[in-house]
């Protein structure tokens, strides 16, 4: 147990990733503000990315880390696009509340 505290093991990293992911998920579900929701999705990304890096390091295989670089790149592009969308949506309704866009209800 001490050893576990002094030298981090795979499970610690995975736990960190899972906590990040769950925080993002809960935030995504409970928030209405579109920017906050967007940030939450980013947080879920990071949770997954942490897991990937951890696996990569422990298996001595760089594929996971390479993958993470790509994910970060694409996430950056996606962030630009998503924020642009959010601005457009805001212009239409003068609000950031996602529930303003529930016209597709049954």
């Amino acid at each position, binding site marked *: 147990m001490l050893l576990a505290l002094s030298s981090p093991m795979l499970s610690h990293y995975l736990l960190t990733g899972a906590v990040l992911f769950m925080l993002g*998920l809960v935030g995504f579900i409970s928030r209405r503000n579109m920017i906050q929701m967007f940030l939450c999705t980013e947080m879920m990304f990071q949770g997954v990315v942490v897991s990937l890096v951890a696996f990569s390091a422990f298996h001595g295989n760089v594929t996971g880390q390479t993958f993470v670089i790509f994910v970060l790149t694409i996430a950056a592009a996606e962030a630009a696009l998503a924020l642009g969308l959010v601005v457009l949506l805001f212009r239409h309704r003068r609000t950031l509340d996602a529930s303003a866009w529930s016209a597709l209800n049954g």
Partner: protein
Amino acid sequence: MTPTLIPWIPALTAGVIGLISLFRDEWNRFAGALCAGAIGLSFLLTLSLWPSVGSGVLESGFYDWISFGSGDNAFHVGFSWFVDPLTVLMLLVITGIGGLIAVYATGYMKGDPGYWRFFAYVSLFIFAMTTLVMADNLLLLFLGWEGVGLCSYLLIGYYYEKPTAVAAAKKAFIVNRIGDFGFLLGIFLCYQHYGTLQISTMLDRARETLAAVSHGHGVATATDLWIPFLLMVGAFGKSAQLPLYVWLPDAMAGPTPVSALVHAATMVTAGVYLIARCLPLFELSPYALPTVAAVGTVTALFAATIALTSNDLKGVFAYSTVSQLGYMFLGVGCLSTDGAMFHLVTHAFFKALLFLTAGSVMHALAGQLDICKIRGLRHKMPVTCWLMFAGCLALAGVPLTAGFFSKDLILGDALAYAVDHQSPLFYALTFLGVVTAFLTAFYTFRLWFTVFMGDEHYEMGDEHHHNNGAHAEGTEADHAADHDDHAHEPHEMPWIMNGPLVILAAGALLAGLVLHFNHGITHAVDHSTAAPFVDAAHGGDHGDAHAGEHHAYFMGIDAHVFMQILSSILAVAGVGLAAVVFWLKRDIADAAATRFDPLVRFARHEYCINEIYGATIVEPLRRLGALFYAVDRLIINSIMDLVGFAPRLVGLGVRPAQNGRIQSYGLGMVLGVAVLAVVVLMATSG
């Protein structure tokens, strides 16, 4: 080839008229000329057929209509013709009278919006009717039979905007269905019994049986006894005899030329033709022909009493048609097929004439049909007046007119038959026939004196009839003027309408004289299948079938001479009485009508026959229909509604899931993944 052309020329014409009216509105006005021309051509072809048929039979095939099976089970029905003198006689009546009526109709229907439709129907009718009389097998005959029924339906319902016309058309069609059902069963039975529907083969077989029976070996089977009764039902339906007569008086809702052509001269005589054509089948059953004669005579008297009281111009002629058809059935019933056919021909002349002149009166008076409101038209419509007079003379059977000779041939033969067979039934029928003859003379001239004699006084009808169309279009100037005339005064008809009537009138007055003395009809009938069966062994050859009956004596006088004298007296007496009552001393008529008011009303109301049918047949059927409707609404429909309701119910349940909020979808997704994860975990660990 010639026989094939006779029906197909009108059939093609019907198609052509229908097609051109589809493409060019301005060609519609040629429809009448086309139709009349086609019928005229058929008439000429029929005339050219006469020498080649002579006293023999011309059989010709057109194509194999129905053909299946092989060997003993083979069933072949050809679209082929059997033309004997009886057929030619019918064809001459159909195309000859039909052509004249078509010419009249070109004038009568002028300006009607359905001008082309009318002539297309008439052409089609001529096709069906000629097919009916030329058919060499019962199935083809049935095709023509149904075809004329259809055309009758279409033509009665010609003014389809009038509810009465539509109701009358339906009534005619449905009542005829009853008769046709019997006819169809008769055809089935014929096929089962004879193994063929070929009329000539069937009749040969029937004659063999007759000969065997008359020689004392062999008997008619039960089927032989039943076939004529079933065929008879069809004949009674088509020819408007009791108890199926009810459709004919209503059928007058159609245009008047139709009443003349379909419901007086041709179609309604199809029943008489059928019995004449299949006479040997009827002779096989000892009860069939007496039944035919009895029904015919009772109908004749029955219809005559209604005609006596009717105040409807066309209604009187409609009932008199029913009555005269009854005479024809009496004729075939006492084996006087030549008398029946003779009366058929003369009746076609004078009844067509009467209907068409009635049409002229109607046309002149804007659809007025109530004879209480038409008086003394002789100055306004002199030609029509005397044309109708000619027709009335013939219908009344005044000596030397056509109706006199033909009716007396039937009554004389009936009396001779009664004397020969010492049959009380036929004595009674002859007596009823004579009474009817007197009534006929009386009611005919009641109408004529009322309409044309006495002080001039008339009221116009409320319809503007069919000239509406011309008026609305406002096309030709003369037409508009014609219409203006209309609104004010009755006027004489143009010669395009009166011309054919003059020919018909000549026929009504003279045809009887000519045909009586040259024995044309008797000759034709005796060389056809309508000749009564004469046993070769008992003397008398086929060509002399009626010879035996011509020498029956009644009270010391030849039956025919006796009947001629008696009915001459009665006809003249009837006309004279009508002249006194309805012209010279009208107050007698009014007093009598008041005195017997309930009786007159009862008869005018057709003895409540329509009400009785309504209560016993129509109303129960209507109730049954209402019941079925209720079952359909309540049970079948609720089940169907339930089936339709189930998806809606499911939708109602799951609709909240689709609430349009992205968070909910996210939650759903997460829960789904969670469930899957649990499942996978349990699966891998277990």
